[in-house]
């Protein structure tokens, strides 16, 4: 029997399959993390953020210790955004992942020695984003 309207059965099946794959993917990919950390956020002196370990050119990732009122902040969305002093347009930023309570790891390469400036953006669930300024030198 020749395939007529039945002839698009496979197309419909594949279309349905890809639609569901798309939906699943969107859910997996969706994340409220703000890339680039470019939002204006208030400063809140209760929050502190500190880069752990040596800051040097060869390092590809850094750990940030985030605290509020001295206590580690866990489960927040954290991202770091830094640039060389005077070259703000060529800054780097990325989202950090929590590896230990209050410790967030971010993949960032600081390519040149000199003075760097930036901020750590911290968003705890249910709270507005908070920005903690950062300033350091790369040896």
């Amino acid at each position: 029997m020749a395939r007529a309207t039945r002839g698009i059965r496979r197309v419909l099946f594949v279309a349905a399959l890809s639609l569901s794959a798309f939906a699943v993917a969107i859910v997996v990919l969706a994340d409220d993390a703000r890339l680039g950390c470019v939002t204006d956020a208030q400063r809140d002196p209760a929050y502190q953020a500190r880069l752990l370990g040596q800051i040097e050119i060869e390092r590809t990732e850094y750990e940030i210790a985030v605290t509020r009122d001295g206590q580690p902040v866990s489960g927040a969305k954290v991202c770091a955004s830094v640039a060389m002093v005077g070259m703000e347009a060529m800054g780097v930023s990325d989202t950090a992942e929590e590896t230990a309570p209050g410790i967030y790891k971010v993949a960032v390469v600081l390519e040149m020695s000199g003075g760097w400036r930036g901020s750590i953006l911290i968003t705890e669930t249910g709270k507005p984003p908070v920005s903690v300024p950062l300033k350091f030198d790369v040896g």
Partner: protein
Amino acid sequence: MCSSSPFEVSVPEPDGDGPAPTSPAIRTGGAESGPAPSDVVVTTCLRKVYPGGRVAVEELNLSVRRGEIFGLLGPNGAGKSTTVGMLTTRVIPTSGTAVVNGIDVRAYPARAKQAIGVVSQANTLDQGLNVWENLYFHGRYFGLGDRAARSAADELLERFRLADRKASEVEDLSGGMARRLMVARALLHRPAVIFLDEPTAGLDPQSRIALWEVLVELQGEGQTVLLTTHRMEEADEHCDRLAIMDHGRILAVDTPQGLKASLGSGAAVTARAEERLDELAAYLSRAAGVTEVRVIDGDVRFNLPAAHGAMQWVLAAAQAGGFRLTDLSVSDDTLETVFVNLTGQDLRE
């Protein structure tokens, strides 16, 4: 200025028939008295000039009666395909009107296409679909629902004896079968008229015969058919009426018998001589019964009332006049004669 009154045809006297359609088989030559309301295809002063100035069709007045097989006969380049193109919305006329089944083709092409079925000279079957699907989708394009399209497709496959090939890819069909499928496809939406452009071109003799059987049978059921051809024998045998076209104009319209009776008189003679052709032509034309004398391509051509004894007569006459003929041929009363007489030249194959 184009006159919409029909072209001149010299016919002895009009029948009492007038334009009313009668059984095609007994139609004899009658005066062309203009289109009747029941005519399926009517063109008025139809004209096509291509960019660059080439006039393909000029002042065409045509009418095709319901239920007849109408032939457009003429050599390549006569304008037949262009005419069909204008009737089937593929070519836009420069001026004039074309009406099919009461619908102005220029003004309402989409509606006109409902009434038109087309079988082109080239194979225009859908290569991505198989035989059955070509018919099925044609039905769907024309508004048939799924079920109606399926049954129409099955029915036509049966009828045209293609049922055993229903799942074949169209590339695998022979020329004759492909043409048959195209005819089936063109008929599927029951158009008022089907147009066939050189339907037997490229077919072997058996397929040609088979195709004509189909067309005659369709006509028997009341289908109107308009076709173009340059094959005189086929046109002569099967067409109810013919229009002879050349250089974009219709030269004559009548039944094959009518055309032969009025314009092809008796035998066509071609005599060749090495010298003094014009003298020979003048000499022969003085004889009674010699008509349509011309000198073409080193031949003297003319007509005689009958083919019987013609050769002896010409030889004797030429000898008596002191002419030496190098070649002589006499052809019977055929459409070819009609064509040659009308145009003054051979049918260019």
